[in-house]
């Protein structure tokens, strides 16, 4: 036997009191349509227009029951904002969030949504109240939701995420390691028996060896409790490992969405392509020669018109500067969708349909 994960403890009783399924297996657990969030930023009081950050601008996607949707993109592209919109930590400007067939703000109250959707944050330290013991932190949500025996539930979950309750229950966050804190955060999210867990860069701050431990844990939990994940990361390897489908964002917009194997083998959007080529090679004999993209991601305060990527795109054509490409399937009824004029024969792009990407 080689290096392994410690043995998983015997399965605790599954979280029985999850909210019941309403829409049936065919109903996507979450449908997001045209989600939009602009943040005003202070501009000049004197006449100057108030600037806005177009953090999320017309994002639409679906999450099916039991799948893991990975979201990738450069920093500032609106991943976290999307996540916060999904669990109602931010109020959307417009758009629809439909959870298990029910519209948020319509049939579904924020409170009910939060029974079903929980979140794990990136900064494991900042996401735990330093003044509460680990047990109290985990039990808090269950207590708020009026679930039975919050403390027992907390201890069970601690056990499940691999933290012996007897040794850790009474500790404070600064008394445990980063990997352990992230386990606590996971346990806390699960304490409310959610069906969808949004993981916003949940493993990014961890060391590689610890990251692997936590990813294993997440995989186990998903299987065990039938969870659905939205997994946000900028590490493509991690996203690929854990996701069923990958959604790529650029400057507040979705540029591509596809099942993981499809996108891994062929990226339809030039940005996705560049992002993938930017991954460091693991082969010393075959190192990266050319940077796939020049310059930094632009500021979302004044995003470029037309296709937002056109300022950095190798295949830019005049149409890209004026017309916003729509997110459309590459093949009719296919799962692989991209928002690029190259794939739209009617777009007027001179390279459209020429298959320049591969």
């Amino acid at each position: 036997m080689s290096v392994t994960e410690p043995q998983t403890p015997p399965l605790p009783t599954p979280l029985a009191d999850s909210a019941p399924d309403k829409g049936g297996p065919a109903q996507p657990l979450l449908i997001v349509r045209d989600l939009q969030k602009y943040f005003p930023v202070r501009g000049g009081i004197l006449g100057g227009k108030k600037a806005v950050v177009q953090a999320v601008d017309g994002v639409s996607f679906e999450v099916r029951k039991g799948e893991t949707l990975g979201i990738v993109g450069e920093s500032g592209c609106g991943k976290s904002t999307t996540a916060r919109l999904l669990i109602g930590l931010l109020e959307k400007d417009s758009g629809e969030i439909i959870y298990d067939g029910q519209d948020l703000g319509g049939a579904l109250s924020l409170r009910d949504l939060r029974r079903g959707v929980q979140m794990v944050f990136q900064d494991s330290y900042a996401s735990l109240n330093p003044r509460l013991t680990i047990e109290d932190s985990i039990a808090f949500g269950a207590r708020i939701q009026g679930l039975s025996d919050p403390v027992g539930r907390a201890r069970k979950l601690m056990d499940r995420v691999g933290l012996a309750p007897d040794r850790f229950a009474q500790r404070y966050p600064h008394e445990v390691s980063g990997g352990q804190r992230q386990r606590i955060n996971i346990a806390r999210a699960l304490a409310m028996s959610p069906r969808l867990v949004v993981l916003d860069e949940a493993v990014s701050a961890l060391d590689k060896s610890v990251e692997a431990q936590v990813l294993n844990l997440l995989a186990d939990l998903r299987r065990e409790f039938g969870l659905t994940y939205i997994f946000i990361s900028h590490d493509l390897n991690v996203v690929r490992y854990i996701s069923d489908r990958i959604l790529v964002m650029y400057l507040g917009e979705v540029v591509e969405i596809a099942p993981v194997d499809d996108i891994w083998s062929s990226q339809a959007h030039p940005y996705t392509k560049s992002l993938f080529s930017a991954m460091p090679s693991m082969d010393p004999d075959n190192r990266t020669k050319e940077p796939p993209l020049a310059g930094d991601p632009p500021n979302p305060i004044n995003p470029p018109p037309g296709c937002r990527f056109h300022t950095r795109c190798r295949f830019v054509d005049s149409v890209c500067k004026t017309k916003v490409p729509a997110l459309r399937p590459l093949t009719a009824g296919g799962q692989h969708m991209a928002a690029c004029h190259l794939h739209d024969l009617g777009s007027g792009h001179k390279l459209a349909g020429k298959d320049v990407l591969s």
Partner: protein
Amino acid sequence: MTAIDPLDMPVTEAGKGYWSGVGARLIRDPLTLICMSVIALLILSAIFAPWLGLGDPYKGSMIARLKPIGTPGHILGTDEQGRDMLARLIYGGRLTLFIGLTPVVLAFFIGGTLGIVAGYAGGWVNTLIMRTVDVFFAFPSVLLAIAISGALGAGIVNSLVSLTIVFIPPLTRVAEAVTSGVRALDYIDAARASGASALTVIRVHVIGNVLSPIFVYATSLTSVCMILAAGLSFLGIGVRPPEPEWGLMLNTLRSAIYVNPWLSALPGLMIFITSLCLNLLSDGVRSAMNVRD
């Protein structure tokens, strides 16, 4: 399989609470301990003054006025009306500390609440509270205290009112800053995401984390407040005679400086020592409470 617990990590004593940590750090700081004892001594002697077998702080004899320090029967001498200085200084500690500390305590609660509400709510609530506070910040604190006290007239209650008003804005501002800082942390979002009401989030997650910085700041105001309170009395718009109060005693003993300088320095010295100890204590508490230090 190895017998090692994979998740073990050396930690300092598991389960140790925050306050016991603060206590432990305080105990290891001799200067703070000394100051704490001095303040405790002052407070205790102020509380138990009537049982200490002191002379009557209000009753004097004209024949025995301005006796020097060391006079038998009057260890610290007598004041300009022949009243026992020791008794008056100890009873004076009562009023001085009361007027010096109460406004900070009141302002701590009022300003703390306002600041937490402003910081947590954000938006127009924040704007309303903080812009109002800004207006008070346009007045230097001493000026504001004197202006309000001067307008209201002398008296203990008036002094308390004016000093409380003076200390509410800074405490509000600090509370707001600390609260908005905490508000931005993910654990607040996590708590909100679990469906807790704003009040619950504030109660469970905000207060515990903002209280100690606000408290530390408040302690640093106590000495300012005490000096200011004594200053008001010294000016004649604080405590009214014949109440023993250090600032007032300093004022009434001012002319005795030509007869017996040491005697008339005593109230000033008391103010100095007390405020020194309050300052040092506040510094000590500050460093003891700083968890991430």
